[in-house]
């Protein structure tokens, strides 16, 4: 019996004729690959990645703190004001500031918004800021002055309310630039 083929009486093991191991002269080996367990593992990984991906998508809100600067500030404009919101324990206090606009126009937007059902009324603050934006379209800055009891979540919710407002189904940009000022340590009279 010849292992390498040839010979009229030999039984070929490798090559020669057609067999499980390939056709004559070929060294190819056909292997059936079982894809089922691979698919099983990948489906599981995919499922958990999808679940985890949807559960925690992180974003951010840009904020700054006031910094003393020696450079002269930009000249104030009459169509732009800075909104100030003091977060008191039971209410929001909204005031506007601008050096060149009439005091009466600024005071027309001064408001106190008490809490509603124990929570700050961010929808109402958005409405108020929308009216400010209509009167002073170039305004884009909000200064938040938290109190000692204010939490991180409350500041975020206020920023959300002050960033944009839905008008007739469209997003209207309010005050995207936010500055977080220092705490108010006591309920000082205005």
């Amino acid at each position, binding site marked *: 019996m010849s292992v390498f083929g040839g010979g009229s009486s030999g039984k070929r093991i490798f090559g020669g004729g057609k067999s499980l191991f390939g056709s004559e002269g070929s060294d190819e080996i056909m292997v059936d690959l079982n*894809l*089922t367990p*691979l*698919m099983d593992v*990948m*489906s599981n*990984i*995919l499922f958990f*990645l*999808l679940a*985890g*991906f949807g559960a*925690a*998508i*992180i*974003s*951010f*809100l*840009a*904020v*700054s*703190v*006031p*910094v003393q600067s020696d450079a002269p500030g930009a000249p104030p404009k009459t169509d732009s004001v800075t909104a100030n919101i003091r977060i008191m324990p039971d209410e929001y206090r909204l005031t506007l500031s601008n050096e060149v606009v009439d005091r009466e126009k600024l005071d027309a937007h001064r408001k106190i918004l008490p809490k509603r059902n124990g929570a700050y009324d961010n929808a109402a603050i958005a409405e108020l800021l929308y009216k400010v934006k209509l009167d002073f379209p170039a305004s884009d800055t909000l200064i938040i002055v*938290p*109190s*000692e*009891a*204010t*939490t*991180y*979540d409350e*500041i*975020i*919710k206020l*920023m*959300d309310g002050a*960033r944009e407002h839905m008008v007739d189904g469209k997003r209207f940009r309010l005050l995207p630039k936010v500055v*977080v000022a*220092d*705490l108010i340590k006591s309920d000082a009279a205005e």
Partner: protein
Amino acid sequence: MAMSGGSDNEFDVPLNLVALIDVLTNLLFFLMVGFAAQQVSVAGANDIKLPSSNTKAEIELSLVLAITKDQILLDDLPIARVVNGEIEGAREGDKIVSIYDRLNTLRAARQDETGGLSKDDDVLFLVADRSAPFTLLAPVMKTAAMAGYPNFRFAVEKQ
């Protein structure tokens, strides 16, 4: 049409899994890349619950400052301890010395690497629990501003 068996009507239908594996592999790959890019990993801060927000901003990572119930971490390294809602450590007025020194060191090192100021050099990515009182955040933010980081990105979960 292949029929097997004697009198039964079963059909052998070979299922081509290769195409399915191809699609799954691609999905897996892109999900993993996206997931890794979005991950904000903060050591020892597994108990932080971020507040949710309707912002659409895509995350841009910068130096990560995490404030947990027990400690303050800068890029996963603890730099100060928090005990009963108060930050422990030496102070010089409003400045928390350990945080100030560490931020200054990092800032100087970064400027050495980049040869000057570059984007995000004055930005900190702030990660804090939604219930964290502002009395805890305020001194940290003030100290960071003194160290040349007046801008922050407040970490939130997208709604």
